[in-house]
């Protein structure tokens, strides 16, 4: 008896177990990307759906119509390039902020007495179970010109007139760090809590002070957790739409927002698809990095 094997009872049972989830993901996760790729090389067309077919029977011959004009269009207008660049910049900075705040938090939880750890972790994760939308919305009330912060600062006499905070990049950073912080803390905690305390004792025994032990032992050993947490923040933030829409202003040019506008406001599905394809290409390396980490940490 080497492995639990359903084939013993159902001929081909194993195949059925694989086929179920495989087919679902193939049809509803993989196929959509093929569709996006396909439509990104078709032409805009006034109608329903608003793009031309790739294959057409004309005069009893198969015509394949492909165009890269959508990509050419994206690269010719610096609005799109700036949007990509801005998104990456904002996502990168926000990831650094999340790490700076999230690492000490994860460290504190991992070092807490074991009966407190679950409770502390729960405290960090609890907000992410309430609505994401509501949490972003909460900052609208705090940061607005007529918001809690401005009112408070005017009341104590710090300022005379409200400072513009809402609809700025500052508000976007606050919103992103606020929403994504738990995603940084969780993998870092999972990594840090596994560290063998004997290693730190050994370092101390060999003459290292606490600070040295942290930088020479703890930090290098938590690299996997840092990568996982950073990718969990960076990748989704690059494509973030809700936060720049609600908290950002005219200056906040992010690719998720541009894609949304192309799709819903301009109804230019091929250009929106091309934007999506480029975004995937941009994110493929971070996604693979994350996938490799997942493999390493969880054996998936």
């Amino acid at each position, binding site marked *: 008896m080497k492995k*639990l094997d359903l084939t013993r009872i159902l001929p081909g049972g194993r195949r059925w177990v694989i086929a179920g*989830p495989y087919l679902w993901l193939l049809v509803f996760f*993989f196929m959509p990307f093929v569709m996006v790729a396909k439509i990104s090389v078709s032409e805009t067309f006034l109608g329903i759906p608003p793009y031309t077919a790739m294959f057409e029977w004309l005069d009893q011959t198969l015509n394949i119509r492909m165009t890269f004009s959508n990509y050419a269009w994206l690269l010719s207008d610096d609005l799109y390039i700036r949007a990509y660049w801005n998104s990456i910049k904002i996502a990168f900075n926000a990831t650094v902020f999340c790490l700076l705040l999230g690492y000490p938090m994860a460290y504190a939880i991992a070092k807490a007495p074991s*009966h407190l750890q*679950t409770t502390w972790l729960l405290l960090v994760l609890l907000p992410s179970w309430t609505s994401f939308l509501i949490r972003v919305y909460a900052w609208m009330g705090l940061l607005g010109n007529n918001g809690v912060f401005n009112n408070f600062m005017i009341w104590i006499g710090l300022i005379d007139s409200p400072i513009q905070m809402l609809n700025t990049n500052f508000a976007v950073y606050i919103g992103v760090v*606020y929403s994504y912080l738990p995603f940084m803390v969780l993998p870092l905690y999972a990594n840090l809590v596994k560290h063998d305390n004997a290693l730190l004792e050994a370092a101390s025994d060999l003459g290292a002070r606490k600070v040295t032990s942290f930088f020479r032992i703890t930090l290098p050993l938590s690299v996997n957790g840092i990568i996982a947490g950073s990718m969990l923040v960076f990748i*989704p933030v690059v*494509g973030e739409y809700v936060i720049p829409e609600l908290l950002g202003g005219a200056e906040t040019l992010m690719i998720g927002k541009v894609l949304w506008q192309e799709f819903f406001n301009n109804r230019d599905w091929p250009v929106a698809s091309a934007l999506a394809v480029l*975004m995937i290409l941009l994110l493929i390396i971070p996604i693979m990095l994350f996938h490799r980490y997942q493999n390493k940490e969880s054996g998936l």
Partner: protein
Amino acid sequence: MRSGRFSLSVTIFWLGIFFLYGPMLMLIIYSFNASRMVQVWAGWSTRWYGELFQDQQLMGAVGRSLQIAFYSASTAVVIGMLASIVMIRFTRFRGRTLFSGMITAPLVMPDVIIGISMLLLFVAMAQSLGWPAQRGMLTIWIAHTTFCVAYSTVVISSRLREMDQSLEEAALDLGATPIKAFFLVTLPVISPAIISAWLLSFTLSLDDVVIASFVTGPGATTLPIEVFSQVKLGVTPKINALATIIIGVVSIVAFSSWLLFRKIDQHNRAAARMAAQG
């Protein structure tokens, strides 16, 4: 080693907690504000809760969202359980790399990409197959199930990996068929993970606004879509009231499961102590 000393990380931890909970506390307080001008305090009132429950459109959206979340979570958990068995127990088969990629990618893939690609698929399918004829709750259910499968698989497979496989072997050895061994031994052992996977999927589905906006159709407005359209215009006291209710429900569920967990934990510790002394 020495307690009671100043610790930088613990200080930052509590600052972080304050950062996380402060804004929500403000939402709750201002939901009881009598004034229509949201940030101007005009005394305590529950008036906005009354208006919230009279908003037919919002209440309808709540019902639809709960329904979609329930079905998505349930489907996702079943598929996720199968996927976990595939990932953990069937270590080699053709296409495993693609399979594991399709499990992890949705965890980080930006919502707008999942949304647009799903919609394009549904449009193409409707064109060529005639199904789904109309977009709405069905398509949202499919979309939500798909990304929830990834989360469910991660949660369930981590439990399945820790499970001692000799438990199943013992069941087989004692005469249970593989199917029976699965339902009588494996399933009960991984049931905590299945419950948390379901809860996670449920909240994720209830929370999604971007993907649902892409794949929805006429008349199928979910709660987040409705909230989003109202919020875009600015802060409204009704949404404060709704937020307070959501925070309240989540806190009660979380608090009671925390209590339950602690009780089980204490019980186990006490039992272990008794066993050690006995």
